[in-house]
């Protein structure tokens, strides 16, 4: 009798768990007259209010899934059935990789009149010459956040984050290209270093960083700064802006060595069954007013110059929200590396985390 009760309870708790797990996908099957659109985007990067506005205006049902690293996204898109996602939001180097693997559809610019709102300097990027496959969304830098109440030493560069006084007190992105790139920069090397001898040095330097890092977090690294668990860190610039609003003693520093930069873009997958809806979405999000709604919530560096005008001075003069031009000019982007070099990077990362 008792045993049956136990079995019943176990089954019940298992069912409860699986129901929690499946909730999202059930809804996804429902579609209305205008069809649907499957977005696969970064976490904390696209406000729900904007998606709701789009649904109201167009009658298209939007399903949003999220990821927290470019590599996760690539792995997921490859493992899902073709056409599971219509629109992706890859960063610069990942756009190039997706193009080279033939995974993207060319954009139809006749359906994207709002492309005119994008600033000239953001058009025709090196990773997608002529914007054949992508339009820029938002970007930023892996900048340094410092809580000046808690840190006495002056922090000006990535190299300062290796200072022994910060032991167990910093948060960095859980992203191997960002962290290894930052370490290379601290040694005066390239963000995309490939020289094996130099990478040996970087690997040794990473061990110094290991002592200082309390937390690896890409989803919401600001929380550890706000709660006071960490006093400094290398995190997304806009996350610093949000942390500054909560804790005034937090400051943003663009490293002297030149920051790690990223820019995320809208692209459409090759097998997208909802190509027209995808175009409607991309055009919608390039509308300055809608883009301003995004910036209200997630104040990243924005390619949409007309949206920046709507946001006014509060946005454009805040260095964490709108990184100064010289910081952008000095910084560098992550580039694709050969698979041999990537293996070395992965080994270094495993060593750091063991």
């Amino acid at each position: 009798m008792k045993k049956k009760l136990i079995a019943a309870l176990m089954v019940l708790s298992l069912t409860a768990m699986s129901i929690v797990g499946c909730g999202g996908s059930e809804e996804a099957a429902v579609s209305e007259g205008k069809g649907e659109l499957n977005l696969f985007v970064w976490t904390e990067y696209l406000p729900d209010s904007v998606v709701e506005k789009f649904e109201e205006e167009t009658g298209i049902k939007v399903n949003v899934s999220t990821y927290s690293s470019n590599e996760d996204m690539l792995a997921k898109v490859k493992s899902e059935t073709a056409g599971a996602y219509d629109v992706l939001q890859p960063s610069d180097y990942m756009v190039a990789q997706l193009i080279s693997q033939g995974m993207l559809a060319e954009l139809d610019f006749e359906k994207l009149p709002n492309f005119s709102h994008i600033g000239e300097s953001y058009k025709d990027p090196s990773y997608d010459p002529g914007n054949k496959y992508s339009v820029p969304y938002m970007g930023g830098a892996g900048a340094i956040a410092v809580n000046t109440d808690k840190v006495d030493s002056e922090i000006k560069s990535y190299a300062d984050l290796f200072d022994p006084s910060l032991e167990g007190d910093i948060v960095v992105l859980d992203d191997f290209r960002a962290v290894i790139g930052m370490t290379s920069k601290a040694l005066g090397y390239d963000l995309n270093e490939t020289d094996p001898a130099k990478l040996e040095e970087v690997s040794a330097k990473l061990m110094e960083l290991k002592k200082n890092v309390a937390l690896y977090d890409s989803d919401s690294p600001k929380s550890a700064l706000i709660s006071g668990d960490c006093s400094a860190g290398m995190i997304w610039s806009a996350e610093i802006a949000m942390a500054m609003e909560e804790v005034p003693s937090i400051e943003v520093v663009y490293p002297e060595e030149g920051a790690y930069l990223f820019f995320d873009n809208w692209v459409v997958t090759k097998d997208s069954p909802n190509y027209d809806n995808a175009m409607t979405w991309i055009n919608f999000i390039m509308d300055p007013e809608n883009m301003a709604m995004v910036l209200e919530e997630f104040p990243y560096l924005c390619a949409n110059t007309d949206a920046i005008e709507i946001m006014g001075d509060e946005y454009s003069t805040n260095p964490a929200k709108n990184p100064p031009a010289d910081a952008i000019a000095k910084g560098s982007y992550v580039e694709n590396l050969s698979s041999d070099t990537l293996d070395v990077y992965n080994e270094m990362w495993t060593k750091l985390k063991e």
Partner: protein
Amino acid sequence: MENFSKLLSVDYLKIYARSMLISLMTTVLCVLIGYPFAYVIARTKSKSRQLLYMLVIIPFWTNSLIRIYGWRSFLGNSGWLVKALQYLHIIQEPVDFLYKTGTTVLGMVYCFVPFMVLPLYTAIEKLDGSLLEASSDLGARPFHTLFEVILPLTSSGIFSGCIMVFIPCLGYFFVSNILGGGNTDMIGNLIERQFKSANNWPLGAALSIILILLTLLLVKLYQKLGGDMENLGV
């Protein structure tokens, strides 16, 4: 094959050793906490027994990920624990509880104690009360009764509890990510990374095979020692 030879590199062996250690600590702590707990539940009168039993089950109804995030804000620098300790003047400055190996073990124990309590409860429940009476009638002190009568008779429960804690513990990756801050990888983290960010599926698959072999080995060991598969709930 090349991937299997890679598995023998020092880095991976270290991670394996650490995962084993963390799982072992978790298992031992689960036995120490779970055993008295299960004993009390099994020995109380039927009404309150149901209630105690439910108290073990109910936390299961919340997703474990959410519960682990709860621990994170509880233990954080501005969390309740630090505030309470400061209020009681036990500590002056905030102490870092988070992002340590100990925190990972704490989270693991918290997640897995019910898996230990349930098989122990079944085992202890089957224990015949008259044997305990006989033991004390024959002059054994309670201490002796515990080690010579109760523990041997419930050993199958202890063993199946250990298996149910140790094995999933090896593969749990989010606890060490959230409470350990991602500083110390476990096998689970390593496998997860091969499939996601490192995008090296063959290596990830090889790593998983090792984990499966390890599991099979433990289950075989359990059978060898006379364990009943039914007690494992399989």
